């Protein structure tokens, strides 16, 4: 009960002290405001990047494995991977035959070519060779027209399905269906347009709107199959069965490749998790550095608060003397000044949060989807109170230790 009264009293004193020195309070708070805006914006941006990345790879599907020659992410050991045999159409067909539980097995390969329609040219477009089963392993579907069908693959047809961005660039308002576009040296008939994925080239990541799908057989025939990167995409029967399924795939692949039990795998299994982990590792470091740098501004703000608290303690030496004479204990005085410094910082934190909402809106409009989440708000409030307590503790301790007789005599 007693401490509750004193806390309330401390709060009133803090409010009074801030009100009494408005200009000083505002200037001191400004340091904290800037610090909080910087930190919150960094956290928001990190969140935005994370969302954007998750969104951009969501088309890959989390119940899908990629059998490839090399892992997507690796360090060193490059030459060991380089000397591996490439995967082939035959191996894909065998895997499909043996792997009964798989929902779908789909080979794909890709190349980069310039694409042309009349005078419109797009350079270095990602051309993906695939089969009709692509729609089973990916969530992407055609917006209009159709996807590659079995016939296209079987008879090596020069048909293509284009991504949204390709359509926008090459055709503008014209209906692209049944138009002929030139990919490399060959002409293809547009049979479909993929729906918009909306992840326009995220930090060098794949841009799923800037792709063209053609039958895999056509791609091999037109652009060659030698040493071409080749993936076999397999879809697990369910999300839960992923782990078992991965072992099954490895087992079948080893059989197909006729590996002895002592031999290492000469292929790699890739999945979205691998990519996610790699991304999280990189982003973790980037965000940490960002927070460190923005944290410096908060640190400087904290120094400002500490400075002002020292001034405040000196100015109010006599007041401290009076309070001690009529019965304030050390802890009471300590709490009073800690309350004052944390109030300043909390105020700064709240104003900083409000400003951060504005900054986030701007980021949202101009750069990427970003939003301030409840945990970020919570963290910002905790951080600002913490900065207040840390920067107030030394001045408050000095105040608490004052000798009442000397403090009362202070002019």
């Amino acid at each position: 009960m007693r401490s509750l009264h004193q806390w309330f009293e401390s709060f009133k004193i803090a409010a009074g002290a801030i009100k009494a020195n408005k200009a000083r309070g505002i200037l001191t708070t400004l340091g904290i405001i800037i610090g909080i805006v910087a930190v919150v914006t960094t956290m928001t941006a990190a969140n935005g990047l994370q969302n954007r990345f998750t969104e951009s790879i969501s088309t890959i599907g989390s119940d899908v494995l990629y059998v490839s020659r090399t892992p997507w992410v690796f360090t060193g050991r490059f030459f060991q991977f380089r000397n591996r045999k490439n995967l082939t159409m035959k191996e894909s067909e065998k895997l499909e035959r043996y792997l009964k539980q798989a929902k779908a097995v789909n080979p794909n390969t890709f190349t980069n070519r310039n694409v042309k329609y009349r005078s419109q040219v797009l350079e270095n477009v990602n051309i993906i060779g695939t089969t009709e089963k692509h729609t089973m392993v990916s969530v992407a579907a055609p917006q209009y027209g159709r996807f590659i069908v079995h016939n296209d693959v079987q008879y090596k047809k020069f048909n293509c399905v284009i991504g949204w961005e390709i359509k926008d660039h090459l055709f503008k308002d014209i209906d692209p269906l049944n138009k002929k576009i030139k990919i490399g040296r060959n002409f293809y008939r547009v049979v479909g347009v993929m729906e918009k994925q909306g992840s326009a080239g995220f930090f060098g990541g794949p841009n799923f709107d800037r792709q063209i799908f053609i039958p895999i057989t056509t791609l091999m025939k037109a652009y060659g199959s030698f040493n071409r990167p080749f993936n076999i995409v397999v879809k697990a029967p369910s999300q839960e069965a992923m782990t078992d399924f991965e072992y099954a795939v490895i087992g079948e692949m080893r059989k197909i490749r006729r590996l002895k039990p002592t031999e290492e795998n000469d292929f790699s299994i890739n999945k979205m998790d691998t990519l996610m982990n790699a991304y999280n590792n990189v982003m973790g470091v980037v965000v940490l550095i960002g927070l460190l740098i923005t944290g410096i501004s908060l640190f400087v703000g904290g120094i400002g608060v500490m400075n002002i608290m020292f001034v405040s303690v000196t100015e109010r030496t006599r007041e401290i003397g009076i309070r001690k004479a009529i019965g304030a204990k050390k802890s009471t005085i300590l709490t009073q000044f800690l309350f004052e410094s944390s109030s300043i910082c909390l105020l700064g934190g709240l104003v900083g949060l409000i400003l951060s909402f504005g900054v986030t809106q701007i980021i949202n409009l101009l750069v990427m989807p970003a939003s301030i989440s409840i945990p970020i708000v919570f963290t910002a409030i905790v951080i600002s109170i913490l900065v207040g307590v840390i920067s107030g503790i030394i001045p408050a301790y000095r105040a608490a230790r004052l000798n009442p007789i000397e403090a009362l005599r202070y002019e």
Partner: protein
Amino acid sequence: MSIRIENMSKVYKLGATSVEALKEVSVTVQDNEYLAIMGPSGSGKSTMMNIIGCLDTPTSGAYFLGDHDVSKMNDDQLAEIRNQKIGFVFQTFNLLPRADVFHNVELPMVYSGMSSARRKKMAEVAIEKVGLTDRMKHRPSELSGGQRQRVAIARALVNNPSIILADEPTGNLDSSTGAEIMVIFDQLNRSGNTIILVTHESDIAMHARRVIKLKDGMIESDTPNKEGIAA
């Protein structure tokens, strides 16, 4: 609650030299006494007041306030004793400048942890005793010197202390206002409060029933004052 001081000394160390402000002083003060401590500057009366007021502890000797051995207390225990047992009235009033009359008077009770309803009631009673009910919401800067000292008196007596300790209470006031303040002390003593005045003005000391004169840290004389108002 009585005061018992036995062989009390206080030594201040100033660098290499040490100054003995009080030398083996022994005093006993009974309940409801009206005591004046007099002496020229440097006589040790401020030191005496600080120790009696529990703002400081003696270097040697004993100080009993009722049953409490104050000379052995730590800072927080002293703060609690000051809060419960001592009411201070200072020469320079020592009110909180940003707080109004009510809050200044209420403050000792905040530190003793009283509920705000009870604080309000008791503060109002104390303010009424010094006749400032109509000034409750004023700040010290809006009051005259005499009124400020009356606020200080209200604050001193609000926690029903054992001793009211007044250090030159009229020192910053003109003589007629000073006389008004002394009337309040006289009344408080008559209604049962122990009052200790520290002063160098003999006409102020004449209000008390007992006068102790200090000189060079020792008691020069300790005489009852027949002309004291309550005698």
